[in-house]
Each structure stands twice: as structure tokens, then as C-alpha cells.
């Protein structure tokens, strides 16, 4: 399981899902952008005193739920993955459909040609989000099935039955998605990724060459690519100098690059760099950063 502190996992959970409440959710009308739109329109119409106007209008429209800010059953809302997890496990919501880039069409595209698909434009953390999504769907269906098997002994309504079947279907869908994600990530995409990482060893100006390739990679693959390039560079250095050569620490190198960029931006000539540096040393805190 991913770590609690893992930034990529946290960002991967930002994916928006379409969900449908299975009953009326009170106080959550603001989650549905259409309802607030309705309310605003109704607020505009009377133009008199606010509260009475809204109530009257709602009576006219016969949407009593909206008056106390409720989200009626069956409304389609978009929520991030992290927010719906608890709801899904308690059976408060249903998933009418998965996001389009995890759907059947995308799956067919990925099976046809996994290499050329630009996954980054769909979701930067495509695979991590997919994994979390699959996990959530499987767990939700597992919980639902257990509930239904417990209630079967007493009696089962038609709605419950339909819900159970829907959950079984979504579990099946999740398993298929899981297989598809795995074969996409580990298949030709990975091979191509390795190829590029190794071939960038020869040319020093690799940034120009591989940008078209790297732009299509998700964060996970980019990470792998970066590590690959680093490793192949390290092999090259080892062949040339052996292992005794000491390098500059990576952090120092990055800070030096940043300093150079700053000095280029602030002062054109190199001579002017010194006095600004001296000024920086004396003050502490906020002023210093600004002076820098």
C-alpha cells in the first residue's frame, strides 16, 4: 500500500468521479452546480426580501429539498476520489459511470497501441489513480455483497437485488480495468521507456530529443525515466573515472543553478552580483528573500 505521506498518492486521489446519491443528502446542495444556479435564478426573480422570496419560489417549483439545502437522490455530482471513499464503502452513493479515460473505449485504445497514448493529458497520475479506483470499487462491492448476503436470510427487496447486481458488475469492471492498467504499464510502454532512457546516454542534449516522448508519460513513468537516465549517466561516469571520483552534492548543484538564474534575472553583469549577496546576508527573514 502507498505511504500516508506520499505526495503522488495524495495528488492521485484528486481525480473527479461522477457519483449519484442513493438517498437525499441534506445540506449538500452546493455540491451540485446546477442547483445553485437554479437557486440564484430564483433569487433574482422576486427581487424583494430575500428569504421569503426563495421559499415562495421553491414552493412554485416544487423542489422542497433545495429549500433546506438538500441534494436530492439520483443527482449526478462530481466529487474527488478521496471525498467519496467513505460514502462508497457505506453504500451512500452509486457510480453510474467511471471517468471516460478509464472506460471501455480507452481500454480498447490502450490495447491497440499503448505506446502512443498521451496518458499525461488525461491524468498525471493515471496508474496510481487507476489503482486507487480499482481498490475502492472492489472494496465497495465486497461490502455491498456482504450486506446483501446477510439480509438475504430475512428478505430482500427488488431494489436491493438490483443494487447487488450493479455492484457485482462494477466489481467485474474494476477487475478488467486492473488487468488493463497492468498490461499497459508493464508492456510495450515500459520497454519503450527503457529504450529512451538508455539511448539518451549518448547524446548530451537529451532534453531536446526526448521531450515529445516524456510529455506523454505519467508521473510514475517519468520518475522511472528520470531514474533510468540518472543510472545510465552514472554508468558512463563510472566507466570513465572509476568509483573514486567525488561529485558535488545534488542539492548544492540545484541551488547553484537557481542562483545563476536569479542573478541573470536580477542583474545582467556578473560584477553586480557581489553587493546583492552582501546585502542578503545581513537581514533575516522575509526581507532577505525579497532582496534575493
Amino acid at each position, binding site marked *: 500500500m502507498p505511504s*500516508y*505521506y*506520499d*505526495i503522488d498518492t*495524495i*495528488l492521485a486521489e*484528486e481525480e473527479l468521479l461522477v457519483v449519484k*446519491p442513493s*438517498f*437525499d*443528502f*441534506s*445540506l*449538500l446542495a*452546493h*455540491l451540485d452546480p446546477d442547483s445553485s444556479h437554479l437557486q440564484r435564478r430564483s433569487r433574482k426573480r422576486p427581487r424583494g426580501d430575500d428569504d421569503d422570496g426563495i421559499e415562495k419560489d421553491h414552493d412554485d417549483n416544487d423542489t422542497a429539498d433545495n429549500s433546506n439545502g*438538500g441534494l436530492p437522490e439520483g443527482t449526478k455530482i*462530481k*466529487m*474527488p476520489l*478521496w*471525498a467519496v*471513499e*467513505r*460514502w462508497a464503502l*457505506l453504500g*451512500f452513493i452509486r457510480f453510474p459511470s467511471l471517468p471516460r479515460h478509464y472506460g471501455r473505449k480507452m481500454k480498447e485504445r490502450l490495447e491497440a497501441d499503448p505506446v502512443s497514448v498521451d496518458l499525461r493529458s488525461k491524468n498525471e497520475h493515471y496508474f496510481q489513480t487507476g489503482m486507487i479506483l480499482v481498490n475502492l470499487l472492489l472494496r465497495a462491492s465486497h461490502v455491498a455483497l456482504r450486506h446483501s448476503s446477510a439480509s438475504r436470510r430475512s428478505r430482500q427487496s427488488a431494489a436491493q437485488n438490483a443494487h447487488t447486481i450493479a455492484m457485482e458488475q462494477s466489481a467485474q469492471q474494476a477487475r478488467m480495468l486492473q488487468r488493463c492498467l497492468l498490461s499497459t504499464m508493464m508492456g510495450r510502454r515500459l520497454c519503450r521507456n527503457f529504450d529512451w532512457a538508455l539511448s539518451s546516454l549518448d547524446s548530451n542534449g537529451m532534453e531536446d530529443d526526448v521531450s515529445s516522448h516524456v510529455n506523454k508519460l505519467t508521473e510514475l513513468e517519468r520518475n522511472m525515466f528520470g531514474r533510468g537516465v540518472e543510472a545510465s549517466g552514472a554508468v558512463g561516469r563510472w566507466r570513465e*573515472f*572509476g*568509483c*573514486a*571520483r*567525488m*561529485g*558535488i*552534492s*545534488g*542539492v*548544492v*548543484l*540545484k*541551488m*547553484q*543553478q*537557481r*542562483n545563476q538564474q536569479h542573478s541573470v534575472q536580477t542583474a545582467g553583469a556578473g560584477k553586480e552580483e557581489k553587493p546583492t549577496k552582501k546585502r*542578503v*546576508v545581513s537581514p533575516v*527573514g522575509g526581507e*532577505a*528573500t525579497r532582496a*534575493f
Partner: protein
Amino acid sequence: MNYGQRGVDLLRELKRSDWLPSYNEDSVRATIQEINLHTAELHDIVRANNRVGNDTATGGGGAPVPIEMRPVMLLHEVSIKRNKRCLLAYHAHRIDKLRALRWETAGNLATPMKFVLSEAEVDFFHEYDKLASRHAIGGSMGGLDWNADQNPPEENFIQVRVVQAGLGKIETEMCGVVELEVGSMHYLPRSDVEHLVRQGALVQLGGEESF
């Protein structure tokens, strides 16, 4: 819908920067405020529910929460946890980087690095440095310099060129006092100059490059 957005923005900032972005105190405070807001709303809902419960049933323990109220409460709770997780991840990431920095630069915090850190982080770095060096000196491996020889050494002496101005003189055990002027080359014991090479003040030269 922008629950938990502030916290995630903080993390995005971390992802964008190459080492660490400057400590974003405003966003951290805004995130904490958001947590407080969610807590207050959650309290309000619970209190309202208890009042209703006390009116109908004179139990005192409060009525069970009606099912249509549960999603709101859960959403507030999840948002609080989410924001908390974002904040913890933000700080954990920064502290991890600082810890790694201690071992890379042997406890030397360069001034440009100080500017991206908060005061508490600078304190943390110094405290951690103190702890680490005390452990290195008084630990069971007594006398072993933990920062030396991060790469396996091949020779005792190495050829270096000075590339940074203002280093002054260093005192070495075997070569006495050496003045490090920009552009000059020296043949020095590896252990004495390793930290300077790591900080980018000196560059190690190979056999052929020195001639």
C-alpha cells in the same frame, strides 16, 4: 466545490520546485483555518442534532443521527482528515529533504538554502545536525567520521582545483596550512577536502586533466 484545495495546492508547489519551494506560511495557515471551519460546522451539526434528539426523546445521550445527515458529517470529517494529511505530507517532505541535506553537506546550511526554509525548519536542521554529530562522536563506532568517504576511496591524496572564491586557508594534518585561491590546484589528502568538494567549492581532477 473546493474542499481540501488549499492543502493540495501546497503539495503541487512542492512537486513543481526542484529542491524545495520557500515555506508557504500563508497557505499553511489558510489550510489550518479550513480545518477549523470544518470542525466548527461539524460541531454545529452535532449540536443541532442533539437538540432535536433531546426534544423528542428525553434520553440525554442524543438521538441516533438521521441517515440523510450522515453524508454531510462524513464529508466534513473526510475534509478535515484530507487537509491534515496534506499538511503532514508537506512538512514531512520538507523535513526529509533537510535530513538528506545534513548528510550530503555535512551540516553546512548555505545561505540561499536558508531563505526557502522557515525559522522552525532552520532550527530543526541545526538540532538534527547536533544530534547526528553527537551520535557520530559518542556512538559505538567511536571516532569514525560518518561523513567521510561517501564513495569508496581509491587513493589517499587527490588533485583538486579551487573554483569558489573566499575560502581562505584550511589546515591539514599532513600538508600544514594551505591557502585556497581561485584557480589554483592542490594535491591534498582526500579526507581534508571531501566536504569542500561536496559543497562545490573544489573540483576533483582526474589523472589526465591535471596536466
